[in-house]
């Protein structure tokens, strides 16, 4: 007897898509729970975690920001291998402003966010016409080149970097700043990607010639999204500069390029919530595996492979499907 899997929307989903959802507390909860859960989680976790895990949460938020910044670029047809460029540019901008001019973190971070975004956009402007692997290769090479430039010219502290930068006045403040930034980026950009503007960006990824044929200057749209994405990465970098009170060549390290991509792929590419979920899983996992020493990378790699092979759609899409639909086996009609 042949059988096939049938997926059916849950009754509560069908009802909740309508205005009548407002008539039932249960249905309102069904709709809002997926949004409330991450908000509450990120706001409450700092209060209940110990100091060590608070630092891990901070890293989670930073890598989630980088993963979101990667994902919006990828959704617009620009696959980047160089989030480290955005991160490093923001980090150095904030570090320079603070070290040479003594500018407070509350000004240097917003300024570095815009400066970093602007510089990265200008740097990548000539390669916006490239697609796929060609664009990716350029984004991978630029941060590696910048490291060598800093090393060779000894500018901005050279290999030593810039030390003694101003920290945040309180550990709670830095934690809540980055958590708030993550939530704003996650929900704000999700809204943007679901609007008609986001639809144009996704269409550029799908078929750029057809978008050009609709009278839309795709390069102008690419510039805008590149600026938004690189500003998010630059914010993460500028923020970490003041947390570490140091900026140096490691800010251009490959980790800041690869881990965000791994997070977005494990979480579910094409959804910003997936990118965040990926960071929430991978960063703490990396910390937990620290205890097993040298084999850490092996287990970490194995975990990644299992996830990518077992759930190619990503964890977020899997959970979303399970939340909205139930599955059952039905006989195939003869």
């Amino acid at each position, binding site marked *: 007897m042949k059988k096939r899997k049938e997926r059916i929307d849950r009754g509560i989903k069908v009802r909740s898509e309508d205005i009548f959802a407002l008539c039932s507390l249960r249905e309102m909860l069904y709709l809002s729970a997926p949004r409330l859960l991450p908000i509450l989680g990120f706001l409450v976790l700092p209060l209940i975690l110990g100091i060590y895990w608070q630092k891990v949460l901070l890293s989670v938020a930073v890598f989630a920001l980088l993963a979101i910044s990667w994902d919006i670029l990828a959704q617009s047809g620009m696959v980047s291998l160089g989030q480290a460029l955005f991160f490093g540019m923001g980090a150095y901008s904030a570090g320079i402003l603070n070290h040479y001019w003594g500018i407070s973190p509350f000004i240097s971070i917003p300024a570095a966010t815009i400066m970093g975004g602007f510089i990265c956009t200008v740097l990548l402007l000539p390669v916006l016409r490239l697609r796929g692997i060609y664009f990716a290769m350029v984004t991978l090479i630029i941060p590696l080149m910048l490291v060598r430039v800093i090393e060779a010219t000894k500018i901005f502290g050279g290999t030593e970097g810039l030390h003694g930068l101003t920290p945040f006045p309180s550990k709670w403040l830095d934690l809540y700043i980055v958590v708030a930034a993550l939530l704003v980026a996650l929900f704000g950009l999700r809204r943007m990607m679901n609007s*008609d503007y986001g639809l144009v960006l996704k269409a550029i990824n*799908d078929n750029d010639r057809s978008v*050009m044929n609709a009278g839309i200057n795709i390069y102008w749209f690419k510039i805008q999204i590149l600026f938004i994405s690189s500003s998010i990465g630059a914010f993460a970098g500028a923020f970490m500069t003041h947390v570490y009170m140091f900026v140096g060549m490691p800010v251009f390290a490959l980790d800041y390029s690869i881990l965000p991509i791994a997070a977005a792929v494990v979480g579910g590419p094409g959804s910003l919530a997936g990118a965040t979920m990926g960071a929430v899983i991978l960063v703490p996992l990396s910390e937990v595996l620290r205890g097993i020493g040298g084999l850490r990378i092996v287990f970490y790699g194995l975990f990644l492979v299992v996830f990518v092979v077992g759930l190619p759609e990503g964890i977020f899409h899997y959970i979303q499907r399970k939340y909205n639909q139930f599955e059952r086996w039905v006989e195939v009609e003869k």
Partner: protein
Amino acid sequence: MSANPLLQVTNLTKSFGGVRAVKSVSIEVNQGDLLGLIGPNGSGKTTLVNLVTGFVKTSSGEIIYRGRNITNWAPYKIVRLGIARTFQMVKPFYQLPAFKNMIIPLYSPKVKRLAGGKYGDRDAIALDLLEEVGFERDSHVAFKTASVLPQGYLKRLELAKAIALQADLLILDELFSGLSLAEVASIVPIIEKLRHEGKTIIMIEHRLKELFRIANRVVVLNYGMKIAEGSAKEVMESDEVKRAYLGTEV
């Protein structure tokens, strides 16, 4: 020929390496024309359209639209000036539902300026336009992802996207190819209606019978050169056209 043609192509040439795809072609299109552009496969019809719409850069020659030299302009600028086209190989946004495909042309600056339409309004405009080209309103076809639509609907979607741009000159590249007789018969009135509304249309076609019924003028290309121009009857009586289509006796 009119003193002020809508589109004037003069001595247009395009070479791809050693191959000259279009050789010194000159064409004039007047306001309200329905010009048929025909020729055997590889005669340079689509290259000519790609040159006019800016998708391919010219080697030499001039393209004048409403008195402005638009040679080698970027495609999006040409669309904003009032020239819209469809593609021979349909280019829908496969990941999006059919009606969401329409949002892209409706988002273009020119249409936003002319028709307005805020977020949400565009969905309604999109559904109206799709209904105009034959997406039945009471069916779910407009809400299906473009990747699952049959060729007939994809061609209609391509036409609807061009109509949405509110262009004065529509260039339809092999709109009828791959369609059944019934499907062609249902699209012909839409094209006639567009012409009635004052649109100028250039149609590249291999379905000559259907084309000759609606075109007022026909240009024939062969090996990148214009070999005939005139009414459907005139061009079909031309010996050169007969040779191009049927070949010569050995």
